[in-house]
């Protein structure tokens, strides 16, 4: 991170670093694994730092998240290209993650929602995460994803519907199992 002068570095610390949580959260939901998210979020922060002198004000969170998103998609293309092709895969199981975090997920509904979100295609998952977890406006989501606002809206619509139906079918399956 040697490319910034002292003044830019301080601005970077004040403006961008408060959004490290947002960066990690988006990466975690796009990549579905915390280890991958950590690696990619770090790479994204490096990229952000390198291109920070080109940032002249505006929404620092949206600016950072745009970089995080692009870094995530490049990573997916190189490592798990299949995920970018699936439209909606009900049989797509979340990869088993034996981290203490996943073991600690005691809350059943939380687990069900996590699984539901993870079965959505990345492009639907990201709008839901940005809207529902990150609280972004449509304008911010459009800036982060480089999509027109109309597309943001229709993606959100499909994402919500698919998540609802994934949740219904998963609870249905569980009910069947219990019987």
């Amino acid at each position: 991170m040697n490319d910034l002068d002292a003044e830019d570095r301080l601005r970077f610390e004040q403006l961008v670093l408060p959004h490290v949580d947002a960066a990690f959260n988006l990466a975690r939901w796009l990549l579905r694994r915390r280890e991958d998210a950590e690696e990619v979020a770090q790479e994204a922060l490096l990229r952000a730092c390198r291109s920070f002198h080109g940032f002249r004000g505006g929404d620092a969170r949206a600016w950072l998240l745009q970089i995080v998103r692009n870094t995530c998609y490049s990573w997916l293309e190189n490592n798990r290209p299949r995920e970018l092709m699936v439209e909606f895969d009900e049989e797509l199981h979340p990869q088993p993650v034996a981290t203490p975090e996943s073991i600690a997920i005691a809350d059943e509904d939380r687990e069900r929602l996590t699984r539901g979100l993870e079965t959505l295609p990345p492009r639907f998952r990201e709008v839901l995460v940005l809207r529902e977890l990150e609280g972004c406006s449509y304008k911010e989501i459009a800036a982060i994803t480089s999509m027109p606002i109309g597309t943001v809206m229709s993606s959100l619509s499909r994402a919500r519907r698919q998540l609802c139906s994934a949740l219904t079918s998963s609870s249905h399956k569980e009910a069947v199992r219990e019987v």
Partner: protein
Amino acid sequence: MRCDFADSLLQGYFDGELSSASAVEFERHLQQCTHCPVELVDMDLLSERLQIAQLYESAPASLRKKIRANLRPVAAATAMSQPLRWHWLAAAAVLLLLVIAGWRVNSVLRTDDYQAELAEAIVDAHVLSLQSGHLTGISSNDEQAVNGWFKGRLKFVLPARDFANDGFTLQGGRLDVVDERSVAVLVYTSTGHLINVFVWPTQGRDTSAQVGSRQGYQWVDWRKGRIEFCAVSDAPTSDLQQLQRLFTN
């Protein structure tokens, strides 16, 4: 089954993103449609479930550590002579320590609309002041000097006070514009954090401290003696509340 006519408007309505004209149009539609009200309820339930499940995942300490490791050698190697710059460096270091300690920003604002809008404008002004580097019109820790600078520039008497003994050092003041209204700003540093206290006259009665956070910054708002104060910083809320108590005592 779904309603094609309303599909585009439904999301916007639910997310509060429609213009008031479109919202009225959609509400008219809602009274006749059998699908949209059901879908609105579904969306609301889903949203609530997502909130309750607390799916937001904060950055792990190890990530913050790596980012800090990348930033620190450069920062330490740079000589800073100006005192305020030194404070900024300290601010960054303390910020990192705090976040490593697990401090987490709650991005959900649960206050009424007026305060949400006010907080938005104030936090924007705070960020803008950091971006532009325009922090102080007068740079001084002397109460008299700062008050003297404001006198003639303001239509009300500004209680500029230095609380250095309590850990809040006055750095100076400036004039700013928030929501198209001119406000005075007192600038403090505290354990390395930079705090902007926005001050303007109000007709409202005294209030106790209202707190919130937005986009990684905390704010504490209160009114006393026909003056409204709003302190904003990346410092923890408890620090801002301490500053609020110093002001009101």
